[in-house]
């Protein structure tokens, strides 16, 4: 099924992720579960969700309220994957023993922020994927620990303002490039891995469908801007998430059992500087005496990565690793 908003609307009966949560106006994060629940509904699946500690979790489950009109478990910060692996295993065990008789097929989804995924939850995620559980892990990547007030994560890009890698007189903020979580996850081989952006939601929905239908673990990294700490206007979330794709900052692609496929190939790219300039979090970087060199380095990096992706797409065509 090729998804668009119309097909979703046609199938939609009941909100599974409901409004009233306390995420910031303009936040990119809620779109990530919202679209996942809509796609699952259209595909006639029931969902069971686990969620790592972070903005999404704290803002959607303030007791006695919940935005989750589907079964939901928050366990801790670093174990959303291990937790869902337990629920998924329980499902298989209880089905096998004939103790449950669900009407619809149940799909298991874990949501985590970049802190809960790139950093503290990486071991739990890697273990669950290596074991081959049938689940979809969806990362909403806002490039920092936003729930706790904008601390650096392994996903924070160089030069972005954070409170734990601040721009000082001596050190110009975070120095390291973003960890490449997509390649780490793809290296588990028997897995469907994709990037997505809340600004490109049709692409995201199609990847959700693939992930749900994939036999085994799937991982989708969704770039989801944070209005508060990216320092962007509330109305600009989707544009900036799109700009990330248009500047090669966040290329859209997927890796299915080692086979690379780029899902968006803009005819013309914009310079990465435009992505940086659109956000207040890079203000200090842009004012730094070495700004042009640092930006050039970043441009060279995204260019090289794009070339490499094209080469990987060519090299892995029809050559699944498993």
């Amino acid at each position, binding site marked *: 099924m090729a998804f668009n908003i119309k097909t979703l609307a046609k199938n939609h009966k009941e909100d599974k992720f409901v409004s009233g949560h306390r995420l910031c106006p303009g936040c990119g994060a809620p779109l990530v579960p919202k679209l996942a629940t809509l796609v699952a509904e259209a595909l006639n699946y029931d969902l069971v969700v686990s969620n790592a500690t972070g903005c999404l979790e704290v803002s959607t489950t303030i007791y006695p309220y919940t935005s989750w009109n589907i079964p939901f478990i928050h366990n801790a910060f670093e174990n959303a994957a291990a937790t869902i692996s337990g629920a998924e295993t*329980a499902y298989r065990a209880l089905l096998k023993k004939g103790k449950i008789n669900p009407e619809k097929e149940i799909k298991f989804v874990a949501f985590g922020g970049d802190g809960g995924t790139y950093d503290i939850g990486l071991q739990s995620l890697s273990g669950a994927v290596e074991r081959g559980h049938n689940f979809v892990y969806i990362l909403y990547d806002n490039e920092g620990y936003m729930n706790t007030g904008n601390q650096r994560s392994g996903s924070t890009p160089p030069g972005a303002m954070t409170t734990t890698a601040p721009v000082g007189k001596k050190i110009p903020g975070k120095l390291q490039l973003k960890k490449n979580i997509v390649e780490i996850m793809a290296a588990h081989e028997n897995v469907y891995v994709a990037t997505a952006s809340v600004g490109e939601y049709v692409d995201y929905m199609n990847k959700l469908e693939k992930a749900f239908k994939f036999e085994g673990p799937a991982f989708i990294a969704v770039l989801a801007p944070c209005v508060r700490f990216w320092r962007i206007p509330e109305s600009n979330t989707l544009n900036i998430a799109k700009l990330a794709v248009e500047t090669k900052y966040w290329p859209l692609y997927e890796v299915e059992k080692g086979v690379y496929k780029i899902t968006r190939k803009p005819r013309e790219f914009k310079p990465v500087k435009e992505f940086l300039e659109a956000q207040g979090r890079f203000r200090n970087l842009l004012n730094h005496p070495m700004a042009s060199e640092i930006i050039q380095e970043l441009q060279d990096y995204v260019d090289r990565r794009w070339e490499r992706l094209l080469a990987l797409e060519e090299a892995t065509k029809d050559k699944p690793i498993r």
Partner: protein
Amino acid sequence: MVVEQKKLAITGAEAAAYAMRQINPDVVAAYPITPQTPIVEKFAQYVADGLVDTEMIPVESEHSAMSAVVGAAAAGARAMTATSANGLALMHEIVYIAASSRLPIVMPVVNRALSGPINIHCDHSDTMAERDSGWVQLFAENSQEVYDLIFIALKLAENEDVRLPVMVNQDGFIISHGTEIVEVLPDEEIKKFVGEQKIMYSLLDTKNPVTYGPLDLYDYYFEHKRQQVEAMENARKLFPEITKEYEAISGRKYSYVEPYKLDDAEYVMVALGSTNGTIKYVVDKMRQEGKKVGLLKITMYRPFPKEEIQYYLNGRKGVVVLDRSLSFGAEAPLYAEIKSSLYEVAVKPQIGSYVYGLGGRDITPDMIRKAFEDALKGNLVADEQRYLGLRE
């Protein structure tokens, strides 16, 4: 009616695995650590041989073991794990979450000294670090008790008024690797005894969605903690009922505490775990010499059986408390709690604290006798921590 039972020569670890096989849990997630490893190995073999239809999750850490078991239990599965020392410490964060989520998980814990320095042998520092986590904690004296207590634990955990996780402690190596005769009930009897779990608030019940683990701030958290207090009280109340039911089929009696030669005893030792066996031996010897000594073995440590302790210790001349762990800068845990219980009794005994056996240091009958003799001489000092078997 007491059922005919087979006698097996097995270790404590094997007894735990055997009990788990008879329970046939839906999900087991575990990670190996000495001296718990033989439980996981044995159970994995049962799975491989098709003797259980459990789904096993070979997790990459104990943190994930407890996390996966929480996910599985929240999904309505009977879920178990087992661990020791550093593994339990690594689970610590989720141990609390399991209890507050009111998930009836049963976990054999093979007690081992916590690092550092690293050591693989027995003491109780691992389980003591979890004593305020909201888990029920039971202590076995030997492999037979390991076997029996696991079923009692499951029944207690799953009771609707309790819904709390339970740890069944056994001393590392001393019990876990020592072969003893264990009487085992037939599989069908256990199946009947443990029954089917009443599934409550399952994540798989998609028609009645529940949210586990919400953000619970100052407006509700306190009340939820109060409910955990209540659940613990219910565990305390129900324990005798369940042990009686178990006694009816097994012929083996369990209580919060086990009094040994206490009727006319003037001097009483109090301890947890396998050391109770050695103490019984010393009590027998000293009784032959006409000394009025006895033992109060603690089987249930959480909830703490204060009333029974008061009942058995009120009016004695001396009480010697043995601890296999420390609380740096304060009194050893069991001692502090026994002493505090005695604040309320009519006739307070002399009381003394003896720490022993850390990191697997051997405890000999002579050492136990020495502590009794201190009591007999009236030489117990409430405000002094003494050590058995320590070079100073």
